[in-house]
């Protein structure tokens, strides 16, 4: 067996020498075939050990093999500088500026390259997205364990308070916040923002539901068909009469599912009413160019109509995103207000320490979450999520909204931690 491998190895080398090709690109002509996909496919089923170090560009799997990048190093090395600089082991202002820009630059390069992998290289297949979501979930689990350690400390201290704080919880003589004041407002804000962001995400993932067998979608599709008929017949469109006609036509049919269909139709019609009709008429080629020929291909019209529909949708989603951001900022402001006027401080005892570390780390996570939502908003405005995708069972994995989904998970993690914080610190821990 050993002999066999050695022969194999030497043969390969000999063939490389004979053909005169370089070792790194040592592809014998017969071994690899170019197919219509543009990359070579191996004809052999097993690559032996000897060939491991003569690698080829082969990809026969759905996973993403990324390229080497400077981003991790640019993020990592400044960390050492930050630590040493903070504690005065090294001190250099220009060095700090360089380190900071390297850190932020590295993160930016990293983030942008992920987006480019997804949108331009089209490397984010179903499997890759599944992996991304799994990784995010595990990261969130570890974050939960991080908060778990602080909650453990809180219960450890508060369930058996020692003599220095009067053997009571909250400490003797300390004024603490009531759970009905600002904290309640914060809770409402955060939960509301979570709900609104979820709503936005639901609307977003319904983009691909256009292709699904959804009653609402069927109704809208039917409306579009009628609209197209009207357009091809060059009749003027009166929305009100159009709707009434539809309704009458609908009632004329004595169907079993009449009520259900009525609801569905009226919902679809409502969608139609909300459409940006001015925009539609403005873009009507007949209004713009006199000698324009009406397109005979119906798909073009359909595409135009769906574009209008999506614009309407996007406006709604954008509103949701802005509102979530506003909620996050107001939350952070309220939290800052609470900190500024706090009757206790971080270093006057265990209550302040626990309060400020727990809520402080939560606030930091809110900040990170709102930065993520900001990124998502920008990506949404730029149009990263506008692509239509074929609908499937798993919404998260098969459309291009994985980033949005991960942000949503993170934001809900922040929500849930806040609920525990509110119940434990503000409510259970108040007088």
């Amino acid at each position: 067996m050993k002999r066999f491998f050695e022969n194999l190895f030497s043969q390969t080398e000999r063939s490389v020498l004979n053909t005169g090709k370089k070792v790194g690109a040592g592809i014998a002509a017969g071994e690899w075939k170019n197919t219509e996909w543009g990359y070579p496919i191996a004809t052999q089923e097993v690559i032996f050990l000897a060939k491991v170090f003569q690698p080829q560009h082969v990809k026969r799997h759905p996973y993403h093999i990324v390229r080497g990048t400077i981003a991790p190093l640019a993020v990592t090395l400044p960390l050492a500088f930050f630590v040493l600089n903070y504690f005065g082991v090294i001190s250099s202002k220009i060095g700090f500026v360089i380190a900071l820009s390297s850190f932020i630059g590295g993160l930016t390069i990293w983030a942008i390259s992920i987006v480019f992998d997804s949108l331009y290289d089209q490397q984010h297949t179903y499997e890759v997205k599944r992996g991304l979501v799994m990784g995010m979930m595990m990261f969130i689990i570890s974050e939960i364990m991080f908060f778990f350690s602080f909650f453990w400390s809180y219960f450890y201290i508060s369930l058996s308070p020692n003599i220095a704080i009067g053997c009571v919880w909250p400490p003797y003589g300390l004024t603490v916040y009531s759970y009905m004041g600002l904290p309640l407002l914060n809770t409402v804000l955060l939960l509301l923002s979570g709900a609104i962001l979820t709503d936005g995400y639901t609307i977003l993932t319904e983009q691909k539901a256009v292709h699904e067998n959804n009653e609402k979608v069927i109704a809208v599709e039917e409306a579009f068909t009628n609209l197209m008929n009207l357009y091809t017949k060059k009749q003027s469109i009166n929305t009100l009469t159009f709707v009434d006609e539809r309704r009458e036509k609908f009632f004329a049919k004595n169907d079993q599912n009449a009520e259900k269909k009525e609801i569905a139709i009226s919902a679809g019609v409502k969608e139609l009413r909300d459409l940006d009709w001015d925009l539609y008429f403005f873009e009507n080629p007949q209004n713009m160019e006199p000698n324009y020929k009406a397109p005979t291909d119906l798909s073009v019209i359909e595409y135009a109509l769906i574009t209008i529909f999506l614009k309407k949708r996007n406006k709604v989603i954008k509103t949701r995103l802005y509102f979530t951001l506003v909620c996050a900022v107001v939350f952070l402001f309220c939290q800052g207000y609470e900190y500024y006027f706090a009757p206790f401080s971080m270093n006057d005892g265990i209550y302040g320490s626990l309060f400020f570390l727990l809520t402080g780390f939560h606030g930091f996570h809110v900040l990170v979450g709102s930065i993520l939502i900001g990124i998502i908003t920008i990506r949404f405005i730029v149009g990263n999520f506008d692509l239509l995708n074929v609908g499937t069972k798993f919404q998260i994995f098969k459309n291009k909204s994985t980033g949005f989904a991960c942000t949503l998970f993170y934001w809900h993690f922040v929500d849930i931690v806040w609920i525990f914080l509110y119940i434990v610190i503000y409510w259970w821990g108040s007088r």
Partner: protein
Amino acid sequence: MKLLEIYDKQLVEQEEGGFRAILTRYLNKWIFTVDHKLIGTMYITFSIFAGIIGTLLSLVIPMELSTGNMLEGDSQQYNVIVTAHGLIMIFFVVMYCSMPAMLGGFANWFLPIMVGAPDVAFPRLNNISLWLIVVSFGLLLTSSCVGIGAGTGWTVYPPLSMMEYHPGHAVDVGILSLHIAGASSLVGAINFLTTVFNMKIAGLSWPKVSLFVWSVVITAVLLVLSLPVLAGGLTMLITDRNFETTFFDPIGGGDPILYQHLFHPEVYILILPGFGIISIIISRYSNKGIFGVKGMISAMSAIGFLGFLVWAYHHMYTVGLDVDTRAYFTAATMIIAIPTGIKIFSWLATLWGGVIKITTPMLFVIGFLVLFTIGGLTGVVLANGGLDISLHDTYYVVAHFHYVLSMGAIFAIFAGYYYYYAIMNSNRILGIVRYNEQLGRIHFWTMFIGVNVTFFPMHFLGLAGMPRRIGDYPDAYIGWNLIASYGSLITAFGLLFFFVNIFTPYFKKKALISKKFQRGAMILMGLDFSRDWQIGFQDPATPIMEGIIDLHNYIFFYLIVVAVFIGWVMGRILWRFAYKWSYPTIGDIEIFKNFTAYNQIIHGTVIEIVWTLIPTVILYLIAIPSFTLLYAMDEIINPTVTIKIIGHQWYWSYEYGDNSSNLVEFDSYMVYERDLNEGQLRLLEVDNSMIVPVKTHIRLIITSGDVLHSWAVPSFGIKVDAVPGRLNQIGLYVKREGTFYGQCSELCGVDHGFMPIKVEAVKVQEYLGRLYK
């Protein structure tokens, strides 16, 4: 389906010469790389590098202990070296938190291949994990050199690690380095988990997945769940140091013990990937499948799950936990012996009936089995909350965890390295390379002898009561300490063969003459076994200590039975089934006949149930007297005398408050060497000794004025931590008159080894007379 798929665009793209092209190529290949194999190689290289530094630091420790004066009395320097050695070895070599050798190295290389994935799930995160660990290592080394260094022990217990007792920023830098290391291994753990769960090829069902992959998955789950908790504890520590929060300061309402709860070292993470590697190698070189794969998998999962429930081992039995809590931890810790036993027995059953080829990796595996069994058995001893009072923070603990880590985990790493040598180190320039078998064997035997000579005597030192982390010790302990020092030299000598072996392919054949190297000779000392404090416990003076010694002897009976049984099985396997280079005899033919039959047996329900039940029964038998002792220890019967003991840096003060009109308070300092009189004991003599009456029930109340101390007198069977902000109490009933010595048993700073305890037990009349005059 192809078995291996390689993707390396850079190699194909860059073919032109010139400095710039070479630099780009180098950077792309080694610095910016996202290839799991290159990163794995770099991880291994890094862990070898860190291992060299850790080993060099560890050599300083026995040198100091062999003379007691190598660092010229600089105890802080000694503490810094001990701390750095522990942190480097655990965090940067073995992998507790960060995972260079096992997770970073072997798992990076082979986990994607074993699950049929083209690469890990997040290659960029893989890269950042490597550079984070490098940065973290740099910071850790810096922290040893900044200011007075971090001399806190690797556990960084407050209040010793607070700003008051460790001023300067060494500890801060060290803590942040641990944070970064934690981030690195968290990223790595998430990466491996996603790789396995997301990228496992179709048709590879979970029972078929390699045991190494299983072990990595379980380890990674433990890392994801336990590392953030550790990070939280360290965060509180750093805010306590720099922002004056009071989490661990009793004056502000905190508690130093909270840190010990949060910093629960998940020691089982250290050994689990080692189990995986050992399984693979045993299966390979005994030419058999692993016996009872499902049992192995469930045993590993059980170890992981139970390990997560047990966060207070030996180190928290003395801090003043409630007795029921101690009983719970005793039970939970002892239960872990059952799955561990299942693993050992399954490995032995795998070997049984195989055709065993004894190569270097196999030697290391056999060494692992023998020594890990010893370490595991001493672990059962340490699990007993009652018995552990005498052993906590002594050299017995040091011996135990070095048997499990230095000979368990490190042996597994060496075995894995030799086993995968050809795969990991072959390249286009050198071709297929192999390690030198002869050098490998010499390495194994010198190291095997060396570590045993180093760490086995430490059991005796621990039983005799020598506290760990002291730079100088009473003269009675010198014999075993000297032997341990020679052993560490043998180990270091053995490691040289490993370093030579790494570079084997780079030498020409002629240079490979290794015959001149010879094994280090073991130097035996003439020892006087009849003297006290040499082997076994010190003479008991209280009923509790008598109980501890009885329990130890009782447990030891079972340990000997188990050890002899496993040793017999091991010897029988090696004698009968080892493959020999000779013409086949009739016996060999019989073995071969049987081999075909044995090879079919890959699980046996009955025997697996038997070797689960028998350890359980043994543990029950051990548990009954153990719990009796534990609860007996907690009782304080109608005390007539109450003594308050306060630990300070670095002296003890005693308060006798029974006679309210005549309070007696005094401090007890050590007598330095130059002031000693004839016949007094070095490092044990104090100016004012504590006096207790014999045959009287006494209540001791122990607390501390500054950092954690531990009031320990081996003859009394008492070891209670002095915790600031807590009053720990314990009963004492001295049976006989005499003078008893003890030392502080918790690392408390520079002069930790120089605050002895001297107790004189006298008759009641004499006690009253001497005390109130």
